[in-house]
Each structure stands twice: as structure tokens, then as C-alpha cells.
């Protein structure tokens, strides 16, 4: 019990440490520059207390329950013995045996999807987007679209580590796809789609995905964990942009098809 309590105090302390600069900046500007009282001050302060305690509990729970087993799993799944790969027989030509790592790709996909669904900052952006769009953007639709993007991204990222192809090729091709999609996607989704690239990678996703990248680059011969272990986060930041724009394009296309089949020959929307 005392161990548990000590752990909680540590996590709580680091959460406070994260929040302090934000509180100082907000209240500093509010009181010294804007010089206006904060409406519902008590409620807002209660909100901050909720956020601090909530985040501390959340992180603590993740560290107690999910991170140890998730990291252990990443290590076990990338073990050549488990995968039934005889490294001696293959030699250095891992790339042409990339398919033998299928459990790793599946795990990468599944863990990318599931951790994104639980990501608090994505929930926050989804709530805001639904509010601002007057409900036109469904929070679950957005979150699932982002999660699929992250899943594909992390899956492809592990494939890159196994085959040892350079990171920048994937990212640059990703950018080109994003730019092309930007021209065709509905205008109102573009900024949100770009944002969803950045929000996906925080509290839940990063530790597990990093463990996976490091485990994989440690066990695949010829990969350097320091060089090849990085890059999964970059994948997780580019692919959701595509999937969110794709989600909006799909929605627009379905709406257009429905209105056509309804035989409403109205112009415009």
C-alpha cells in the first residue's frame, strides 16, 4: 500500500509540474494584461482540480495496469524465437522475409487503433469539433477515422523497421497524398484533419508504440534502435490526416449519392 501511495505521489507531482506553467501563463495574462475577472472562477478552478486529479489517476492506472504488460508483449512478439524465424538460416536478408513478422504488424495495427480511441486529447478535440460543427461531425466517427489512420501508420512503420527502408520516403509520399487530398476534401474539414495528426500521439500511444519500435529494432538484425527505433510517431502523425480527410470525403460522397437517388434536383448543397 505504501508503495502504491508513493507511486501516486510521484505521478501526482509530475502532473502538477506539467500544469504549473499553464496556470501561471493563464492567470498571469488574465490578471496583469487583460485585467478582467474570470467568469465562474470557482467552477474553472474546480475544473483544473478535476483535470489534475483525473490525469494523475489516468497515468497512474496506465503505469500500473497497461504499460508493463503492453511493453512486455511488444518485447515477446518481436522475439524471433516466438515468430519462428531462424535468423541463422536467413542471414542478413531479413527484408525478403518481412512477411514472417505478421504478428508484429497485426499487433502494431491493433495497438495503434485501440490506444488512439482512449487518447484523452483526441476525445477533447472530438468534443470541440462536434460542438463547433453543430453536430455535423460525429465525435465517434472522427475518433474512429483517426484511430484507423494511426493503426495503418504504426503497422506500416513496423514494416519499415523490418525492411529497413528509409523513413523519409514514406513520410514524403504521405505528404504528397495529403496535399492531393487537400484539394478535393471539403474545406471545413481541412484544419481539423491537419490537427488530428498532432493530437493522436500523447499519453497512451507514445509509451507503447515507442516500446514496440525499440523492441523491434533491437531484435531485427542490422537495425540500430537509436536510428531505426524512432519514426513510428511520425507515421502516427501523418496517416490520420489522410484518414480524416478520407472520412469527410466519404461522408460528402454518400450525401451526394443519397440526394441524387432522392431525385431532388436542387442546385448547390
Amino acid at each position, binding site marked *: 500500500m505504501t508503495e502504491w501511495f508513493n507511486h501516486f505521489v510521484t505521478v501526482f507531482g509530475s502532473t502538477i*509540474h506539467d500544469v504549473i*506553467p*499553464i496556470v*501561471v501563463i493563464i492567470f498571469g*495574462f*488574465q490578471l496583469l494584461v*487583460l485585467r478582467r475577472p474570470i467568469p*465562474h472562477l470557482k*467552477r474553472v478552478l*474546480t*475544473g*483544473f482540480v*478535476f*483535470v489534475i*486529479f*483525473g*490525469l*494523475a*489517476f*489516468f497515468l*497512474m*492506472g496506465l503505469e500500473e*495496469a*497497461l504499460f508493463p*504488460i503492453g511493453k512486455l*508483449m511488444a518485447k515477446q*512478439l518481436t522475439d524471433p524465437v516466438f515468430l519462428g524465424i531462424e535468423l541463422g538460416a536467413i542471414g542478413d536478408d531479413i527484408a525478403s522475409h518481412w512477411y514472417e513478422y505478421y*504478428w508484429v504488424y497485426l*499487433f502494431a495495427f491493433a495497438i495503434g487503433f*485501440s490506444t488512439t*480511441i*482512449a487518447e*484523452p*486529447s483526441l476525445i*477533447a478535440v472530438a*468534443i*470541440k469539433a462536434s460542438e*463547433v*460543427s453543430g453536430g455535423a461531425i460525429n465525435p465517434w466517427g472522427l475518433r474512429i477515422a483517426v484511430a484507423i489512420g494511426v493503426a495503418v501508420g504504426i503497422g506500416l512503420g513496423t514494416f519499415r523497421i523490418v525492411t529497413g527502408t528509409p523513413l*523519409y520516403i514514406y*513520410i*514524403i509520399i504521405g*505528404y504528397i497524398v495529403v*496535399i492531393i487530398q*487537400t484539394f478535393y476534401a471539403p474545406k471545413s474539414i*481541412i*484544419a481539423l484533419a*491537419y*490537427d488530428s495528426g*498532432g*493530437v493522436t500521439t*500523447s*499519453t497512451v500511444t*507514445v509509451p507503447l508504440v515507442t516500446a514496440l519500435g525499440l523492441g523491434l529494432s533491437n531484435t531485427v538484425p542490422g537495425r540500430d534502435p537509436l*536510428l531505426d527505433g*524512432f*519514426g513510428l*510517431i*511520425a507515421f502516427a*502523425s501523418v496517416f490520420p490526416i489522410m484518414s480524416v480527410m478520407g472520412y469527410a470525403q466519404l461522408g460528402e460522397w454518400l450525401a451526394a449519392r443519397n440526394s441524387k437517388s432522392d431525385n431532388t434536383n436542387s442546385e448547390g448543397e
Partner: protein
Amino acid sequence: MNAFFKALLESFRDLLPILLVIAFFQLFVLQQPFPNLLQMLGGILMVVIGLSLFIHGLRIGLFPIGENMAYDFARKGSLIWLLLFAFALGFGTTVAEPALIAVAAEAATVAVNGGMIENTPERIESYAYNLRMTVAVSVGFAIVLGVFRILKGWPVQYLIISGYIGVVIMTAFAPPEIIGIAYDSGGVTTSTITVPLVTALGVGLASSISGRNPMVDGFGLIAFASLTPMIFVMGYGMLI
């Protein structure tokens, strides 16, 4: 009480996919029992409670204050103070970010192995520290640029696409050791508390300025904050 129970249930639903994935791989793929099942269940309960509290705090605290400050700045009409606030918010929330501190330390190790810097403790420390400052300044710059864009109503895609082109050009010239770290640094800068606050600020600004649409103009700040660190970190790698 009923509302709290409902919030817990929603948080549990958010967590369910991870639980299913872990259970599936543990029991069917790795075919092992769960070690410390009791501790795990306790941890899951904490995650669920924590997530519910966080979302509630978001709705009553972070979102209202972010939007309210945006309205107050718009009413005050002082561009300098608004941009200063934007910079402080970006820089201040990034500089102490634990994920960034960890990445900067690893980057220093990579730099030593790659022979980019000498292997002395002082040199490693100053490399990591300067890298961290570079990222924090770049995020501050990103929020300033993003806020300025909202005020001017520039389309977000032109700036982002220019940023992509910048990243591609820098990639060609930056030392290969820094590229992976630079690409990842874009993702680690935006923390769980910063994202809701910055989103509320952007949406609040876009709603309080006439002629701006909160959906088209309000979002995008996070996108800048994930793009500029890539460019700045590669620039840092080229200078060192």
C-alpha cells in the same frame, strides 16, 4: 451521481479496445496467463476514474477558460499581447514536457554515436538542453503563426503545405542521424493539457472575430505545433 456513473461507463467504453487487444494477444497469441491480475484490474479502475474526471474538468475548466481568454483578447484588440500570450503558451507548455526531455536526451546519445559531438558530459548536456529549447521556441513560434493566421483568415493548407516543402528540403540537407528524431519531435510536443486549451483558444478566437468560421479557421493550431519542431530540429542538427 447518475451522471458520474454514466461518465464512468463512457470512459470504460473508451478503454475497452485496449483491453480486448491486450487480452487477445496475451491469451491467444502468446498463450500466457495474466500476471498480477488483481493489480491490473485496480489499474484499469484508476484509468477509468481518471479519464472521467479529466473529461469533466475539461468541460468546466480548460475549455471555458481557453475560450474566455480568446474573447477577452479579441475585445482588448491588442495584437502584441495576444501574440505574446500565444508564444508563452506554446513555449511554456513545451519546455517542461517530460516526453521532450526524454527525446532530447536520446537525441544527444545518437549525436555522440554518430560522432557529431564530443563524448563529454557537459557537451551532451548542452546539446540536449539546446535541442529542448529549440523545440520549445519552435512550438511558441507555431502558436504565434497559427493565431496570426486566424486573425488574417489565411487558408491553413497553404501554410501547412509550405511547411511540408520545408521539411522535405531540410531532410535532404540534415544529417541522417537527426531525421528520425526530428520527425518524431513533432508528435511529442502536444500534451494532453495543451491540446484542449489551444483548441479552445483557436475556436474562441475564430468565433469572436467577424468573418471567421470557427470550423474552417478555428482549428489548425496543433497542426502548426507538430510541423515547426521538425523543421527547427533539422535546422539545429545542421548547425551543430
